């Protein structure tokens, strides 16, 4: 790649949505969840998405994360038009580029914290020892190196979410997608998670898009967009 091309890539937004529409069928009725939505998220941004239930936030996250496809429009992430990828290619793309943090953590109960974190690394060609080393590094980053051998049932909610974040960052993904990461936590544990996300954004340059209902959580982001009836805006609807 030439120097000019590299520079062009850097100047492009990391996430670029153009005219994204998503339609769902509910019985005989067609519901337009996302309405010709445009969004540009620069590299290193920490964006909060707020909005009432059913506004389309989670659908947008699913499309950004390659878990769902738009009915129309383009989804370009880091220069890659992911809406054109096959199911298999999309899985590979997710493994390399996206880290998911879920509201309910979604850790595998039979695996220890370290094994849960190392799970995405099973899709790489790394050796077992290297996977373990990287999983421990991620756990250390979230402050849970001493809980590595514990199963999810032996951890608090906050600790489980930190393991979830370690799992999301262990492959050094291009983008972190967090769906209500503090939604199941008390204020103290939620704040710790938000501080961790801020740290990942500010000190490690991670691009983060976070869906939240909580204005307190959204305030920790660099900027907030509001979703209402499938449309994005700078201000919440009155």
């Amino acid at each position: 790649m030439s120097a000019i091309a590299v520079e062009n890539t850097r100047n492009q937004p990391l996430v670029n949505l153009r005219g994204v529409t998503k339609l769902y069928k509910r019985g005989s009725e067609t519901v337009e969840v996302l309405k010709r939505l445009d969004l540009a998220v620069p590299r290193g941004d920490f964006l909060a998405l707020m909005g009432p239930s059913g506004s389309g936030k989670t659908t947008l996250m699913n499309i950004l994360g390659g878990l769902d496809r738009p009915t129309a429009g383009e989804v370009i992430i880091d220069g890659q038009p992911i809406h054109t990828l096959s199911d298999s290619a999309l899985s590979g793309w997710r493994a390399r580029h996206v880290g998911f943090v879920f509201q309910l953590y979604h850790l595998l109960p039979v695996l220890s914290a370290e094994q849960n974190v190392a799970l995405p690394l099973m899709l790489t060609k790394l050796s077992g020892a290297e996977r373990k080393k990287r999983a421990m590094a991620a756990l250390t980053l979230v402050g849970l190196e001493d809980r590595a051998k514990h199963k999810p049932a032996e951890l608090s909610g906050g600790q489980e979410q930190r393991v979830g974040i370690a799992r999301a960052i262990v492959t050094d993904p291009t983008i972190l997608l967090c769906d209500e990461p503090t939604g199941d936590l008390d204020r103290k544990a939620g704040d710790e998670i938000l501080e961790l996300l801020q740290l990942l954004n500010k000190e490690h340059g991670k691009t983060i898009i976070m869906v939240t209902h909580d204005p307190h959580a959204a305030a920790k982001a660099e900027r907030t967009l509001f979703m209402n009836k499938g449309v994005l805006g700078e201000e919440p609807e009155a």
Partner: protein
Amino acid sequence: MFSLIWMNFKRNKGRKLLTLLSVMIAFLLFGVLMAVRHGFSGQRPESQAATLRMTTLNKVAPYSPMPVAYAARIAAVPGIKAVTYLSAFAGFYQKQSNFVLMFAVPSASLLQVYPDLTVQSDQLKAWMADRTGALMTPELAKQYGWRVGYRVPIGSSILQRDGGTTWDVTIDGVINTRGGAQFSSQKLFMHYTYLDAARVSNQGTVDTFVELVSSPSQTGQVSHAIDRLFINASPQTVTTASNALLQNAYAAAGNVGAILTGVAVLVFLSMLLVVGAIMLHTARERLSEFAVLRALGFRRGAVTGLVLSESILVCMCGGLIGLLLACILIGKLQHLLEQQLAGVIMTGFAIAVSIALMIALALLAGAVPALQTWRLSVHDALGRA
């Protein structure tokens, strides 16, 4: 990936153990049924000599007496290499439950017709010279602790001229098999002359003639020739290849093999429903986990493979343990059933069928949950969770 399969295999230990036990018992039962079915099929590992042997019985009532004089006429039929005959009766040692199958045979022709049997030359010589001598099978020696030289009384229901029913015989040797011939149960071979001279009834008669022909292709022609000899005699005879005779005997008892196959199929189907229901329930519980794996980048095929491999692991572990137990049980049963059903063995074919069924069971039981996982909508599954 295997570590993930193994970790999942270890979860829900109680449920997994019960599933394994169900599969294990099903394949234990299946293995035993296959072996018993084989016994009823009359198929045994045959020596080359066994394929050359033919058996002549009383046409009106099989195993009823026929004149021993028939032997000389049968021996003259072209194609026959040797003829022997026997009278069999049930004997017992010390108490009626100690069963001994007695064969009264002519010592001169026995090994001519049964070249697949072997006796040490000095023991054979001793037996031929001893009017009340007998040859025992190794199983009989093992069961009652008999040794060469022992004098043993064999009780029976056959009345002797002196009013007794006990046959005192001296063990002169051990008769063994070679070349895979099945002739190894609790049998005792005594001299026909001893039996015939001492018994009150049926003198000069035998139950069975056994012929040895030169080639298996001659059996049809020779059997007709033998039976034609006695077409105007009483009794008439019926001659068949030895193995065919055995199969006919089993067929006469009803198509037990088909019934056993039916039972085995039902066992398989019920097991399919049990394991299928458990796998379906297990997979349904874990749909959100599968969705997470898909979100992390695991391909659809890999996650579906995870479901199927767990089903395979359950069915193979339970099935192989069950099959192993069936082999052990058959080994024990073989000894007990030798007299009634000598062909009860676990064949390579039965083992191959069992393993194929384990794989089929695993794939069929895992098919519906695998399909569910294949069709899984990641965002829907995560949303439901």
